Structure formats: C-alpha cells, structure tokens
C-alpha cells in the first residue's frame, strides 16, 4: 500500500472517506448504484482524497474535508469508467469493466451520473463557486489532454512539449486540483492555494512519468496489464520520445515498428521496448522526473507547518521509491 497511508491518522481519515463514498454512491437508481459500488469496492490508491486530507491538515480541517475528498474520488471514478470505454479495457483492478459488461453507452451514462453526484456534493460545500470553477477547468483540461493523446498516437515526431501537454492534463491537473480544491475549501490564502496547486502538479507530473517508466519496466503480472501496453496502443511516452531524439543504429527499426503499428504483434512491442531500454530511455526519463520532484520539494519547503512538510516529504519519498 502507499506510503502516504502511513501518515499519522491518514488511514482513519481514508476509512471515513470510504464510509462517505458508500453512502454517496448508494444511488436511488439500482443498476447505476450497483455499478458505482462495484467500482468503489474494486479498490484504488485513493491518492486524490489523501492529497486533499493532507492539505486540509495544515488548517486542522481533516474531518471537514471528507465530503470534498470523496467527491474528488468520485470525479476520478467517473473518469476511469469513461477511460475504459475509450481504451476498450475489459478489466480494471481484476474486475470486468462497466463497458465490458453493459456496453459503451451504458458505461458513459453511469460515469456521467457519478460525476453529476460529485458536483452535487461540491455545490453544498463552502466556497462552492470557486470549487465549481476548479472542477470545470479540471474536466475541460483532462478532456483536451485525452483528445490530444488520441490524435497523436503512433506519431514518432512528438516532442517533450507534446508529452508534457498530455500528461499535464491527463494526471497532474487532477492531483493539483485535489490539493488546490482542499486549500480553497479550507479558506486558505491565495499564496497557499498556489503553493498547494504546484505541489500537487509537480507530484502529479512525476507520478505519470513513473507510471510510464513502469509500463515498460515491470512484468505484466505486477502491472495488472501487458507490459508496454501504452506503446502497443501507439501512445508515445517519455522514454520513447527521449530515445527517438537520439541517433543510434536501431532507430529506423524502432520507428518502423511504431509506424507500422506493431503489425508483427507482441514480439515487436517487446523488441521495441528492449531498444528503448538499451538506449537509456528509462534512466533518462527518471532523471527528467526527478526535476518535478525537486520542484515539488521546493514548494513543500515553503509551507509553514513542519508536520505537513514531513507528511508531504513522505509522499515525495514514496514516489522516488515507487515500484508498482
């Protein structure tokens, strides 16, 4: 389990979030309720609620933040259900996805219903207008990032800026918004809201870079999906982009596999990954990710609360050591 859970009192607070979610997802509509609760019970890292709780800790409002932490998790759940339609995933966390069981449109409407309920919670919270704006920007940016990801599949000419545009919207903004929204809900100063946003953003960027490294370096069993599945789907992640910027003997071979969309099957995907690893793609991506951790650390250092600083540094340590 995540190191973040070892933070004093976090497990207890996350249990409260789970209990809140159990009630919030107990919808009147029986089929949607069943799918929502099944998604909840499948588990998850609960990183976003944990970030919100950590942020609220600075203001002594860990308990008051529970509804917002739960709503953030519901937004995440809804986005995963939609992602599974887009990726045509059959399973998630070992369970059949909603789209695999009931079809694409059904899954889209279930995701929409959960999102609607999340907003319904948010509108009752203090500073709800500002929170609504944060959620709106989050939804817009995440969609734009996903659209861009789809439009750029199998494009070997992508730059690091293109990659940053995508992961910024795909992952970092949700983590940044979790911290930012919690700070807003706690009535934090504008300076603190900015600092928390930056902490979440930089941790989020590093989190996604790590995910992309792990996608190529871990075996399928540990990942819960085939290794290199992003590359197989044409998604150019940082290790691939960094390697493609270099000149080396197997470059044309690598480009050929990608441009022909791995027509030779999994063997070609494995060969492509081997080339990327041999060219130092994973190490270089890790160094690049370290830059975001350093920035997150610098923002964490600005916080006045020593206890929170220590907790957030625990999050940084977790990301540095993360192996799944």
């Amino acid at each position, binding site marked *: 389990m995540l190191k973040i859970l070892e933070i004093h009192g976090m497990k207890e607070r996350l249990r409260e979030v789970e209990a809140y979610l159990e009630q919030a997802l107990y919808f009147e509509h029986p089929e949607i309720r069943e799918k929502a609760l099944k998604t909840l019970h499948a588990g998850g890292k609960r990183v976003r609620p944990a970030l919100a709780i950590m942020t609220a800790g600075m203001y002594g409002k860990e308990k008051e933040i529970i509804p917002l932490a739960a709503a953030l998790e519901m937004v995440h759940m809804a986005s995963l259900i939609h992602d599974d339609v887009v990726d045509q995933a059959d399973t998630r966390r070992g369970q059949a996805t909603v789209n695999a069981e009931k079809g694409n449109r*059904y899954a889209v409407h279930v995701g929409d219903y959960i999102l609607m309920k999340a907003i319904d919670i948010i509108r009752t919270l203090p500073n709800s207008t500002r929170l609504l704006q944060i959620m*709106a920007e989050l*939804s817009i940016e995440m969609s734009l990032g996903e659209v861009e990801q789809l439009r750029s599949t199998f494009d070997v000419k992508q730059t690091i800026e293109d990659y940053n545009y995508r992961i910024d919207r795909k992952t970092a903004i949700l983590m940044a918004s979790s911290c930012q929204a919690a700070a807003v809900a706690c009535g934090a100063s504008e300076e603190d809201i900015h600092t928390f946003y930056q902490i979440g953003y930089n941790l989020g960027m590093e989190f996604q870079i790590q995910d992309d490294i792990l996608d190529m370096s871990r075996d399928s069993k540990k990942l819960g999906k085939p290794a290199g599945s992003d590359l197989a789907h044409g998604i150019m992640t940082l290790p691939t982009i960094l390697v493609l910027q270099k000149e080396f003997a197997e470059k044309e071979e690598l480009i050929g596999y990608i441009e022909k969309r791995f027509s030779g099957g999994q063997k070609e995907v494995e060969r492509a990954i081997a080339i990327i690893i041999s060219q130092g793609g994973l190490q270089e991506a890790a160094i690049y990710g370290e830059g975001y951790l350093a920035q997150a650390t610098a923002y964490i250092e600005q916080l006045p609360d020593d206890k929170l600083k220590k907790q957030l540094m625990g999050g940084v340590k977790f990301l540095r050591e993360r192996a799944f």
Partner: protein
Amino acid sequence: MQNLIPALRVKHVTIFDLLDQEFHYGEFVVFPKLAAYLGRIAAIPAKDAQEIGRISELVYLYAKIHSSVKEGTLEDEGFRSRVQMPVLLGDLFLGRFYRTLAECEKENCLPVYLDFMKEMNSRAVDYLKTDVDSDFGNEWLELLARKVAEAILVLAGENVCDSENLQVAAENYLRDQWPALYGQRISSVSELEIALQAEMF
C-alpha cells in the same frame, strides 16, 4: 448565439472534424431562442436569458454527443470518431457548461441542470439495459426544455409567473419550432457562422 462558436473549437480543430455525426443549424440555436422566448414571458433581463440560453446549449451538446456513443471495438473502422471522441468531447462540453455557469454567476440554477443530468442518465441506462442500441429519441429534448423553463423561473422568482405554464410554454415552443429550426446541415464552424449571420440580417 455567436458566443457558442469558441466552445466548438478543440485546440486547432473543431468538433466537426473529430465527430462522425450530423449536426443541423437548429441544434445550435433552439435553446438560446427558447430561453429568450421564456425570458420575455417571465420578464427577466435579456442578458440573463441569453446566458441561460448559452448554458443550456452546452448541456444540449453534452447530452447529444454522449448519447451518440456507439458500440464497437478498437479494431473497428471509425472507432475513434464514433466512440472515443464522443466520450471525450461530451466530457469537454460538460466542463464548458460548468465553467460558463460559474462565469455567468448562475450557480443558483445548477440544481436544475443537475436534475436534468440525473433524469437523462437514469433513463438512458433504463433503455440501454435491455438493448445496447436503443434510442430514446427526443424524450430528453423535452426534458431539457422544461429545465430551461425551471432555470428561468429560478431567476425570475417563483411568484413572478406560473411555473407550470412556463414549462408547458417551453414544451410547446420546442414542439412547434424544432422541425422548422432543424433545417440546414452544418459541417463546419464557418458554415455555422454564415448561417448565424444570415439569420441576423
């Protein structure tokens, strides 16, 4: 109605380039026109009615696009424009709806639209649980029209006009105007701009 144009753009392209579905002129104007009509009945400021029209139009586009998601697999031709893009662009319009609602300071109308989403998505699931290809036609259009009336009422104050009458007026307007408004097929932003300008003059 021109205010809607930026919402149709997605980075360097538009929704017309990304989606494999038909749009008609009336779809971009019916809710702004309905809100203007109801706003006059309820005697609310024209600016408020315009904003409700714009907000409702974004909800309409979200609902239309998400309702158009097709079944299929990654290997199918057109999967991107019939499944993947509708999912993402529906989400985009939903986000733009929330942003516009907050920008226009119409958060007091949010419960009305959330209720629409609750009803629409519940009904869609009810239809789809028996048949993945089922289509619940214009039912949600009428539902949205009634919600536009409710939003106008929120702004007017409940005592200003009769709630039921305004909802009936909304339904009748949609029924009477929709066939005529539906009209010309629109396949680009420039076509829409020309059609909007033609109507203005």
